[in-house]
């Protein structure tokens, strides 16, 4: 061994066994003719080896780009939904089939602002504007408060107009369970002061629109 710990590189320093080993390896190496390695074949093989890697890389790039785009779209939608979910006004999201009304607005909005104090958000306007849609909560149009004194004048732009109680809408009419009876008072309330029974015999509760006419009474007697 040399002074720096290296094995000597000269073959002359080999032992007979090592000499024999070296000769054995050389004989074995020379026992077979070396095949002809064609550079074109080598290059083709290298191309074949690298092609799947390129395809995999491009595919991974597309997948990453698609995932990033999807994440960005999802994030932007989530951000917009967060803005909508803020409790600014209930009129922003009316129930399906429900029309936004002033009474459903818990926060005073410019268009539906009323001079009432907080806590009396429901405006007692005795107007039957129509049958409330299924699933809709009670609104001012369905609450029969016959007190015009408590009715506050609505600002311009709202569809609800104060109507004196007793003319058309009655508590029974407003709370009638028949699907079409609630819409009936609209016609006589504005066109004729005489209530007309639109569908005699139908409905469950007494209503001004279902009173039997004087001509019908003798027939029953």
């Amino acid at each position, binding site marked *: *061994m040399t002074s720096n*710990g*290296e*094995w*000597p*590189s000269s*073959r002359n*320093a*080999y*032992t*007979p*066994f*090592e000499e*024999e*080993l*070296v*000769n*054995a*390896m*050389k*004989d*074995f*190496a*020379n026992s*077979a003719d*070396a*095949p*002809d*390695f*064609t*550079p074109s*074949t*080598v*290059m083709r*093989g*290298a*191309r074949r*080896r*690298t*092609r799947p890697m*390129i*395809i995999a890389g491009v595919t991974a790039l597309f997948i990453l780009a698609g995932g990033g785009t999807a994440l960005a779209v999802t994030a932007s939608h989530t951000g917009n939904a967060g803005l909508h979910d803020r409790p600014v006004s209930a009129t922003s999201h009316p129930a399906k089939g429900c029309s936004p009304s002033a009474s459903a607005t818990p926060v005073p909005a410019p268009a539906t602002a009323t001079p009432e104090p907080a806590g009396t958000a429901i405006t007692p306007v005795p107007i039957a504007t129509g049958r409330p849609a299924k699933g809709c909560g009670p609104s001012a149009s369905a609450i029969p408060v016959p007190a015009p004194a408590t009715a506050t004048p609505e600002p311009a732009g709202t569809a609800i107009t104060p109507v004196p109680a007793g003319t058309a809408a009655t508590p029974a009419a407003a709370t009638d369970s028949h699907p079409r009876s609630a819409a009936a008072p609209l016609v006589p309330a504005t066109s004729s002061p005489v209530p007309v029974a639109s569908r005699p015999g139908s409905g469950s509760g007494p209503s001004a629109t279902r009173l039997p006419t004087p001509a019908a009474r003798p027939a029953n007697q």
Partner: protein
Amino acid sequence: LVDLADERMLGTDLSGTDPAETDFRDFVAARSAALFRGALVLTGNRETAEDLVQETLERTWSKWSTVAAMDSPQAYVRRIMVNLANDRWRKFRRTVANHGDSDGVAPGDEYAQVDSRDQLVRALHALPMRMRTVVVLRYFHNLSDAEIAADLRISRSAARSQLSRGIERLRRQFPELSDPSPLRPTGGSR
């Protein structure tokens, strides 16, 4: 698109007159036989050696711009081949047949000497791959401990240890050829 990318990455153009390709062709013509001989000694099988050299050259071509700029490209290519052989051995070590123990040979007989060398090579190929690689690099490629350690990415002491154990195993199988070696490393030589 892929073909164009391949051509660009591999450093070739359609005319085939790329200087890098010319250099690589010269390198293959000059070094492939030596590479094959080294692979044959390392693996002990002609087909395996051919595959090993083919894959080594393919990897060399894919990194040819780096390899060509080196001071000793053949050393780098030899390193690629040796590490590929070790990787293959790790994958397929269970499928490689053991050649078994060698028989004793009477010295002085010419045929017996040829047979002795053949048995020695067989015994060499029966060594574990890392140990065999160190022995081949040391005695066939005539590398120093530092070069062996650099090629195999191991420490010098590990290379020395593998070499001494490999030689010791071979000596035990051929006691008629072995005698006490003055070069045999001792335990306290570190």
